């Protein structure tokens, strides 16, 4: 082989290819899973909890009941 004419490439990695692939995939999947978990916690779960707390802080159930009754949606409690 005329090795003097062209530069030789570095020998590629011949062994442990599946192990390396699995390790890399495990790391990527762990990072992505944790990322998805935290994203859901902050953007969905905590936001929803805040919304519920905010709503019930100033919720007057009697007022809402009277409003609905006046609007006429109940069949057993007709407006006066």
């Amino acid at each position: 082989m005329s090795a003097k004419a062209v530069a030789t490439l570095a020998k590629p990695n011949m062994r442990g290819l599946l192990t390396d692939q699995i390790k890399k995939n495990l790391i990527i999947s762990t990072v992505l899973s944790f990322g998805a978990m935290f994203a859901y916690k902050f953007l969905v779960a905590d936001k929803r909890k805040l919304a519920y707390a905010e709503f019930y802080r100033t919720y007057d159930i009697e007022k809402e009941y009277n409003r609905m009754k006046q609007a006429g949606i109940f069949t057993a409690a007709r407006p006066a």
Partner: protein
Amino acid sequence: CIRPLILEAIRHLQLCRRKANVIKLSYYLFELGMANNLVRCAAQQTKARITPVISQIRTAHDHAHEHHAVGDPVKIVIGNREIVGFGMNGQPNYIDRVDFPLPAIRYKEVTPDIQVLKEKEKGDWSKLTIEEKKALYRASFCQTFAEMKAPTGEWKSLLGFTLIGCSFAMWIYIWMKKFVYAPLPDTFTPEKQQAQLERMLNMQIGPIEGLASKYDYEKGRWKE
């Protein structure tokens, strides 16, 4: 008195270093009943060229057994090409596959100039030129790995046909809506839909994250 003749034939072939032919020949010889007749042919053939040995043995065998009227079916299919391995399933076929790189037969038939290269191949490989190495590769294989793996652009026609199918399905839906489906019920008129929306707001449906959470009840209109 048969056995030494068979061994002599095998030793002759072994001297020419054609292992595949030796295996085939010996297997063939031990397999047959008419060993005597055949061994005489084999002993004569060892003086001849190596490549046609198998076909000549087989034709000799065909003459010996009159009920074999056809020639060797493998030879008819693959011609003069050499069988070099088991392949994917034992059949003597050729295919270029990345996950199965060694087919059962060589790609090209043996021609005199290829035969010259093969003789040279038995010596020192560093004496072969690049062109000779390429010719030897092309004699055994149809495509290189780069050619096998080259993109074909098939995805464009696949995508095109898929989209054509989707648009045809949409035309069919339009036809169904016009000619097949019954008219919508009267609850779909704008006035009735408006009334339904008012009722939902009165009931305060979705008060925290849904519909009513976007309505301002003090001002009586939608929240900014």
